[in-house]
């Protein structure tokens, strides 16, 4: 059993699948709204089909309205599509490359939608090019995560654990996504298909996972980027269950000197 726990904590399981039988009571909490259900499963429309001949036009209008509703919502309030994606991509990479370090505070809000619960935590964040990240939660609990190259260290209130990121594919992916987001190379990532929107002050990158392994965890990741300096303002991780985690960065200082000691494992 301990091998299953260990995989959660980052080590590869070596025990094999001793318990391959799925648990009978297991019902994964995938919630779907009616629009998604209708669009994904037209065969389940049922009652509409019965009146197709008499109400074909009406059905078409309703369908169009639904599609438009979805589209308007997906466009994000106050944002418009970026017309020239190629030039944005080029500028994003160029400007992000100028960011050599980030020092910031952050607030994290975890929302459990079905349970109408949320918990807010906060702490500080450090990034140093090219692959050093320090994320420290200070309130209402203490937790420290440092990534330095292929090495990672997590420290909670009781224990320090060191992990070689290379030993775990999921950790590798998360590590790469985090670095890609900060370094402005996420648009080149094969892990996501990305749509880009903008308003006067910021860009919004909606990233949809391409691989099944990431789709299990995220429906989308929405990144808000400041237009003035191309730094990340917030990261919103939306799960298939409609739960979400939003990390908002405040008091950002770019390109300040950060000692390597800060990322010591």
């Amino acid at each position, binding site marked *: 059993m301990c091998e299953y726990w260990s995989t959660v904590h980052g080590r590869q399981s070596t025990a094999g699948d001793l*318990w391959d039988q799925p648990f009978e*009571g297991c019902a994964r909490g995938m919630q779907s709204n009616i629009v998604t259900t209708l669009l994904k499963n037209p065969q389940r429309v049922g009652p509409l089909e019965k009146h197709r001949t008499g109400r074909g036009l009406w059905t078409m209008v309703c369908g169009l309205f639904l599609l438009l509703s979805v589209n308007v919502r997906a466009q994000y309030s106050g944002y418009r599509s970026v017309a020239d994606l190629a030039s944005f991509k080029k500028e994003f990479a160029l400007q992000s490359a100028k960011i050599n370090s980030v020092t910031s505070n952050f607030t994290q809000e*975890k929302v459990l939608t079905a349970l109408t619960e949320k*918990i807010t935590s906060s702490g500080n964040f450090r990034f140093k090019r090219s692959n050093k990240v320090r994320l420290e939660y200070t309130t*209402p609990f203490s937790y420290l995560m440092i990534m330095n190259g292929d090495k990672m260290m997590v420290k*909670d209130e009781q224990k320090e654990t060191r992990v070689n990121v290379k030993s775990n594919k999921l950790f590798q992916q998360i590590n790469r996504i985090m670095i890609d987001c900060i370094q402005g190379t996420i648009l080149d990532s094969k892990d996501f298909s990305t749509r880009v929107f903008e308003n006067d002050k910021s860009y919004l990158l909606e990233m949809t996972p391409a691989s099944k392994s990431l789709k299990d965890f995220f429906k989308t990741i929405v990144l808000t980027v400041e237009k003035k300096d191309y730094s990340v303002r917030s990261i919103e991780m939306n799960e298939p269950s409609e739960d979400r985690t939003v990390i908002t960065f405040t008091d950002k200082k770019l390109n300040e000197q950060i000692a390597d000691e800060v990322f010591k494992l």
Partner: protein
Amino acid sequence: MRYLSFSLILCLGCASDYKALQASSPDEACIARLKPSGLATAWYDASIDVVGHHISGLLLIKNMPDSSNRIVFTNEAGFKFLDFEFAPGGGFKVHHVVKQLDKNPVIRLLKKDFSLMLGIPFKKGPWQAWQKGDAYFYGVRQKKEMHYFITDKECASLQRVESGSDRKRVVSLTFHGPDAQKPDSIRLTHHTFAMQIGLKKLARE
């Protein structure tokens, strides 16, 4: 000599944790006052240690409007490990569990542990009672298992909760803090293998 040592180890292994209990008559007033009657909605800083492996995160205990209880365990960054539902009629449902934990024995074990924390085995009797020194044991049977809550002689405070067979203690559970429904901390210990769950209540904004 070797045979003697081996026999001694065997005898120690077979020693009953509940042998010294003296049967007593249940004090209904004490049962009503101190029996574990569930936990209120709260977030906890959680750590689970299993045979040398350590997982930390945040655990939510949530009382739902339909009187069911949900237990959600996420890591600090919000990644959800599990979401279990305990229905008021005794039902149990897994709303979400990560692939690595989606194994029948793991879910069964966690179900039992969280069920004990929520006081579910103590919802109804019949009650039995025993005395051991200054401690009073109140027990309910569930199939082959016995679940006990243990009070002091005066029935002034709940000392701990235990779960096991007639002879062996398998799990013990302690609650700390003045509010029984919202304890400041909770510690669950398995006695048949190295597993501990520690919870520390988080301050809400």
